[in-house]
C-alpha cells in the first residue's frame, strides 16, 4: 500500500508538469485563427505557437505566464493605431515575431512590445519595424532583451520614440540587439544593476545610448556609430564602460561619449574614432579612464574645469586634431603614461617613458575654446609658431596640465 502511494506521487511529479503544458497553435489550419482567442484559452505555462501570416488584432495583452512563439516570423501589425504587444505577467517569453507599425501617442507612449511591472520576461529574436517605441520596459526586473532587430525611420526627435526604452527597472540584460532610426537607440532612466552587451546602435536621431539616473550599470563591447549626438551618460554613478566603439558622431553638440555629472565610473578599452569630440566631460568626478584609444577625432577629450579627481592613464592619442581641450585654468585631474603622437621629447634611459613632461593642451585649443571661428586659422604657420613658443614657456595654458610620464610608443591595446 505504502509503495503504491509512493509510486503515485512519483508519477504525479513526473507527469503533472507535462500534462499541464500544452502547445496551442494559431494559424489558418490550426485550432485558433486569432492570437487573442489563443491567449484567452491558454493556461499558465502553455506555449502559444503562432504560424506565419499577417495578424491585425490591435492591442494584444499577454496577462499570464506563457511562451509566446512565432514560427517563420509571423507579422503583428498595429496599423499605426495600437500598442501591439503588452506584457503584464511575469516570466513571459516572446520570440520570433515581426512587430510593425505601432501607434503614435505622446501621452501613453505605445511601443511595439511593452512590458508593464513584470519580472523575468524574455524578448528575443524579434524584428521590430517602424514602431513609435521599439521595446519598452517599465518597472521590470530580470528581463532579457536579446538579439532583436529594431528599425524605425524617425525624421524628427519629437515624432519618434526610443529603440529600447527602460524605465525604473532593475537587473536587465540588453544583449546583441541592432537599433537604428529611433530617437535614442537604447535609453535607460532609473535602471540599476543592468548590463548592455554586444549591441549595435547606429543612425539614431539623438543618442546611441542614453543613461539618466541609472546607477551600477555596465556596458561592454557595443558599437555606437553615426548617431545624432553620440552617447550620453548623465547624472549617474558607478557605470562601467568597457571595450565599446564610438565612431563618426559628427556635429557641434555631438560627442563620442558625453559624461555629465558622473562619478565613480570606469572607462576602459574603448575605441573612439572620427568623432567631433571623443569624450566630453562636465561635472564628472573620480572617473578612471585607461587603455582607451582616441584616433582621428577633432578633440580627443574635452575636459571642462568642473571635473575633478579624474585619472587618465595609459591611453593612446593618435591623429587627433586636438588631443585635449579645457575651458578654464583649474586642473584637478591627473594624466599619466599616455601616448601622445604629438610628443616631441626624448628617452635617454630607454624605458619607453619620455624624459620631459608633455603639455597635451595646445595654445590653439585654448584659443578655439574661447573663440571658435579661430578654427579657421588652424595649421597656419603663424599659429604653429605661437603653439611652439607656448609649449616651451606655458603662459596662457595651465602649467600643471601635464603628463609627467608620456609614453614614447603607443601602448599595445
Amino acid at each position, binding site marked *: 500500500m505504502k509503495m503504491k502511494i509512493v509510486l503515485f506521487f512519483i508519477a504525479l511529479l513526473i507527469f503533472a508538469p507535462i500534462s499541464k503544458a500544452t502547445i496551442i497553435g494559431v494559424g489558418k489550419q490550426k485550432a485558433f485563427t486569432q492570437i487573442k482567442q489563443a491567449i484567452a484559452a491558454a493556461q499558465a505555462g502553455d506555449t502559444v505557437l503562432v504560424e506565419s501570416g499577417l495578424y491585425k488584432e490591435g492591442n494584444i495583452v499577454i496577462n499570464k505566464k506563457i511562451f509566446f512563439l512565432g514560427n517563420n516570423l509571423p507579422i503583428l501589425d498595429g496599423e499605426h493605431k495600437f500598442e501591439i504587444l503588452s506584457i503584464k505577467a511575469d516570466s513571459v517569453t516572446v520570440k520570433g515575431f515581426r512587430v510593425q507599425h505601432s501607434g503614435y501617442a505622446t501621452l501613453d507612449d505605445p511601443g511595439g512590445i511593452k512590458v508593464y511591472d513584470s519580472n523575468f520576461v524574455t524578448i528575443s529574436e524579434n524584428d521590430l519595424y517602424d514602431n513609435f517605441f521599439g521595446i519598452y520596459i517599465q518597472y521590470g526586473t530580470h528581463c532579457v532583451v536579446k538579439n532583436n532587430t529594431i528599425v524605425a525611420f524617425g525624421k524628427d526627435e519629437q515624432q519618434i520614440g526610443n529603440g529600447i526604452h527602460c524605465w525604473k527597472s532593475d537587473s536587465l540584460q540588453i544583449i546583441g540587439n541592432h537599433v537604428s532610426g529611433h530617437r535614442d537607440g537604447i535609453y535607460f532612466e532609473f535602471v540599476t544593476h543592468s548590463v548592455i552587451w554586444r549591441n549595435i546602435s547606429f543612425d539614431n536621431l539623438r543618442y546611441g545610448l542614453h543613461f539618466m539616473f541609472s546607477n551600477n550599470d555596465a556596458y561592454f563591447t557595443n558599437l555606437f556609430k553615426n548617431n545624432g549626438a553620440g552617447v550620453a551618460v548623465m547624472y549617474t554613478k558607478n557605470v562601467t564602460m568597457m571595450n565599446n566603439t564610438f565612431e563618426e558622431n*559628427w556635429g*557641434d553638440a555631438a560627442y563620442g561619449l558625453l559624461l555629465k555629472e558622473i562619478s565613480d565610473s570606469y572607462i576602459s578599452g574603448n575605441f573612439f574614432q572620427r568623432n*567631433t569630440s571623443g569624450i566630453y566631460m562636465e561635472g564628472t568626478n573620480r572617473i578612471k579612464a585607461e587603455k582607451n584609444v582616441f584616433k582621428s577625432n577633432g578633440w580627443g577629450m574635452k575636459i571642462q574645469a568642473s571635473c575633478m579627481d579624474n585619472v587618465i592613464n595609459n591611453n593612446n592619442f593618435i591623429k587627433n586634431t586636438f588631443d585635449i581641450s579645457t575651458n578654464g585654468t583649474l586642473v584637478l585631474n591627473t594624466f599619466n603614461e599616455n601616448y601622445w603622437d604629438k610628443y616631441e621629447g626624448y628617452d635617454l634611459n630607454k624605458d619607453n617613458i619620455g624624459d620631459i613632461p608633455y603639455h597635451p593642451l595646445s595654445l590653439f585649443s585654448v584659443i578655439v575654446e574661447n*573663440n571658435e571661428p*579661430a*578654427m579657421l586659422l588652424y595649421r*597656419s*604657420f603663424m*599659429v604653429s609658431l605661437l603653439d611652439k613658443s607656448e609649449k616651451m614657456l606655458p603662459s596662457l595654458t595651465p602649467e600643471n596640465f601635464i603628463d609627467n610620464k608620456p609614453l614614447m610608443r603607443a601602448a599595445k591595446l
Partner: protein
Amino acid sequence: MNKIIKFVIIDILKNKIVLVYTLLLAVFSWSAFGLEDNSSKGILTLLNIVLLIVPLVSILFSTIYIYNSSEFIELLVSQPVERKKIWQSLFVGLSLSLVFAYLIGAGIPLLLYAEQSVGLMMIAVGCIISVVFVAIAFLGSILSRDKAKGIGIAILLWLYFALLFDGLVLFLLFQLADYPIEKMMVGITATSPIDLARILILLHLDVSAMMGYTGAIFKDFFGSTTGLIIAFTLLALWIVVPFLLSLQIFKRKDL
C-alpha cells in the same frame, strides 16, 4: 608664341635652380613620409612646404627671372611679335616649369603615401599656388624698374600672405569675438590665396574637428560642390587678375 615658351623653358632648365628646387621638394617629401610612421604627420610637413616654400620660391624665382630677362624682352619687342604674346609666353613658361617641379618633387610621394582625397587636393592646390605666385611676381616686377626694389616687393608680398595675413585675421577675430563673424571670416579668407589653399586642405585633413559649429559653416561652404567651385574660381582669379593687370601695364610700358 610656342617658340618663346620653349625658349623660356630651356633657359630655365639651363639655369638649374628649378632642378635643384625639384630635388629639394623631393627630398623633403620623401623624408617627411619616410621618417614618420603615421602619414598624417608627413602630410603636415608637406602642408607647411606648400604654404611657405612653394610661394616663396615661385615669387622670388619669377621676379628675378623677369628682371634678368629684361634685355631678352627688349630684343623680342623689337621683333614683329605682339607684346601680349611675349608676356604670356614668359608667364606660361615660368608657370609650367614651376608646376612640373612641384608635381615631380612633391606630387609623386603624395600620390604614393597620402590618403587619396588629401593627396589629390594637396597636388591641385600646390600647382595652383605655384601659378598664383608667379602671377603676383609678374605684377610686382612690372611695377618697378629697379631690381632691388622689385625683389623687395616680392619678399614683402610673400611675408604678407604667408605670415602677416594670419596674424591680422587672428587679431580681427579677437577684436570682434562678441559678434557673429563666422560668415564674414569665410569672405575674408578669400582675400588670401594661401589661406584659401590651407582651408581647402584642412577640410580634408581635420574633417572631424571641422564638423564642429564654426567648422560646419566652413564645411558647408567649402565642402559642397558649389563651395569647391567658388574656392577654385577665387584661386583662379588670383592668377588671372594680377596677370591681366601686369599685362595691361606691360603693353603700354616704355621699356
